[in-house]
């Protein structure tokens, strides 16, 4: 019986990978100049027309790859936060990690643009600071951490950073338009150099996330049981949180605030493949990538020539979908 299960999970992961590839090819073809599948394919393998080559390689592919990377990052960040906070509601958006990262990024963009080279680092510092705040406020000496206190302090921390973002936007409203696209979670105008810039960090983050699987799995038994199984709880918390913050922060530094990916994707993955992180984490990476590709493609094609940032699409579609999951008992 155990062997059948493994086969089933490998099949699901295989199907997810194929669907991801299909969604990439379709998304690349959609836009103001429509490509048929065969045109896309011809161009991809290098025998397309020059004009098609330009559109595809300079505009569409970097953008779709960006959506793939950011989606995978946010999904992995969300699933790790849910594991370490022992809370199905945890995600980089709701716990303030994303907005913490956004505050420092926005500060550099508006106040000290000469330091824009430090934006990724600043995002990690801001996100890390937010995570430390969440833990610090949720901690009580008698009972340690409880899931409910972590989420409440996350909501509060998120609100404070949201306020700071609002404050910065008003104080520096003259410089805001440049930052506005970024703040809404837009993937437009991303080139291949942006992709190559974030890819190594993301791949490092994914590798680290995959290395956290065993710890995340043991945490499923509860913190007391994890302690009795020889886990150093504080170290495990730090490592998992760090990886989650890292992945969310580098994403925020590139594309701003994209919510709900980190919240919904792990839920979908668990419903499809079960709660074992050995399976749900890889599936989350793929599903996250796929969903953000779909959201971004929808955003740039639904009201064409107007473009809706992927972050707005995710919020509008993700919120109701999450409520649906919750009512169905998945959450």
């Amino acid at each position, binding site marked *: 019986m*155990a062997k059948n299960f493994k086969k089933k999970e490998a099949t699901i992961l295989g199907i997810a990978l194929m669907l991801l590839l299909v969604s990439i090819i379709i998304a690349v073809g959609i836009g103001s100049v429509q490509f048929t599948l065969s045109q896309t394919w011809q161009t991809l393998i290098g025998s397309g027309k020059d004009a098609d080559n330009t559109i595809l390689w300079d505009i569409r592919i970097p953008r779709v790859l960006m959506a793939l990377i950011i989606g995978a990052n946010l999904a992995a960040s969300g699933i790790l936060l849910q594991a370490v906070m022992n809370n199905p509601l945890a995600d980089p958006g709701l716990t303030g990690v994303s907005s913490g990262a956004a505050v420092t990024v926005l500060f550099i963009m508006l106040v000290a643009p000469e330091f824009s080279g430090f934006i990724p680092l600043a995002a990690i510092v801001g996100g890390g600071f937010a995570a430390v705040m969440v833990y610090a406020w949720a901690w009580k000496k008698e009972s340690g951490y409880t899931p409910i206190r972590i989420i409440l302090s996350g909501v509060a921390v998120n609100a404070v950073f949201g306020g700071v973002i609002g404050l910065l936007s008003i104080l520096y409203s003259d410089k805001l338009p440049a930052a506005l696209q970024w703040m809404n979670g837009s993937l437009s105008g991303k080139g291949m150099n942006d992709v190559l810039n974030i890819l190594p960090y993301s791949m490092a983050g994914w590798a680290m996330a995959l290395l956290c699987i065993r710890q995340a*799995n043991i945490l499923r038994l509860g913190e007391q*049981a994890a*302690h009795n199984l020889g886990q*150093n709880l504080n170290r495990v918390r730090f490592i998992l949180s760090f990886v989650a913050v890292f992945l969310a922060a580098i994403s925020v530094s590139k594309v701003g605030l994209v919510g709900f990916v980190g919240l919904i994707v792990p839920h979908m993955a668990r419903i499809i493949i079960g709660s074992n992180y050995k399976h749900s984490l890889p599936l989350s990476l793929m599903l996250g990538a796929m969903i953000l590709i779909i959201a971004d493609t929808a955003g740039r094609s639904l009201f064409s020539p107007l473009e809706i940032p992927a972050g707005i699409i995710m919020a509008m579609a993700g919120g109701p979908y999450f409520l649906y999951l919750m009512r169905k008992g998945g959450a």
Partner: protein
Amino acid sequence: MLKIHSLYIRYSDKTIVNDFSINVEEGEVVSIIGPNGSGKSTILKGVTGLIPCKSGQICIANQEANLLNNKQISKLMCMLCQGNVSPVDMTVGELISYGRMPHKKWYERMDAEDFEIIEWALMKTGMLNFKDRLVSSLSGGEAQKAWLAMALAQCPKVLLLDEPTTYLDIAHQLEVLDLVRSLNRELKLTVVMVLHDLNHASTYSDKVCVIKKGSVQTYGRPQDVLTQELIRSVYGVETEIEQLPNNARPRIHVLHKI
């Protein structure tokens, strides 16, 4: 096997465990009993390092616990807490496999020996037929046995149980305690458990440690320790103690509150 000397545990400014000392020999079953809030569970949590102790010495299998890290402790001693929950889709086999984690470095995978130990733990707890069942589909007693099997897979020398019979009906309570006793006898496993039921403590333990307000009131064999006066002073309850002829364990009948 387990020596605790002068243990103090405080929550903010309240002393919960106050100069607690006990010496548990190898192969003994010791029950810790006492009223609610007397610090029973806190003692176990302090011993495993789940909560910090203010002062005191703990010695497990002749090794100073202060000098061991959590992973080393978890190879010597396993504690089963109350109210364990597992994910709804976790099988018994998977749950038990986590018992091998203390013996694995973070990059090491399970090998043939680990799977043998898992099978052995299943067999010892009578759970072989449940290996592929979901823990969430088991009855309370069966689930508790699955957790005990996980503890066994950890291959500890000392097993700590925090109210192992809570939430179980009387038949399952006896089943779990019988299992604990047989594991103790067959494997020479040293057991320290927190119990509520005085008759369980009397029947299933070699020694009983009665605590009140965080310190030891008395410690010894049930037939020597469990007296009317003691129960009156610790619980404020009047009892009648029946000495059964065929076994030396006293049976306690609760009469009324003073």
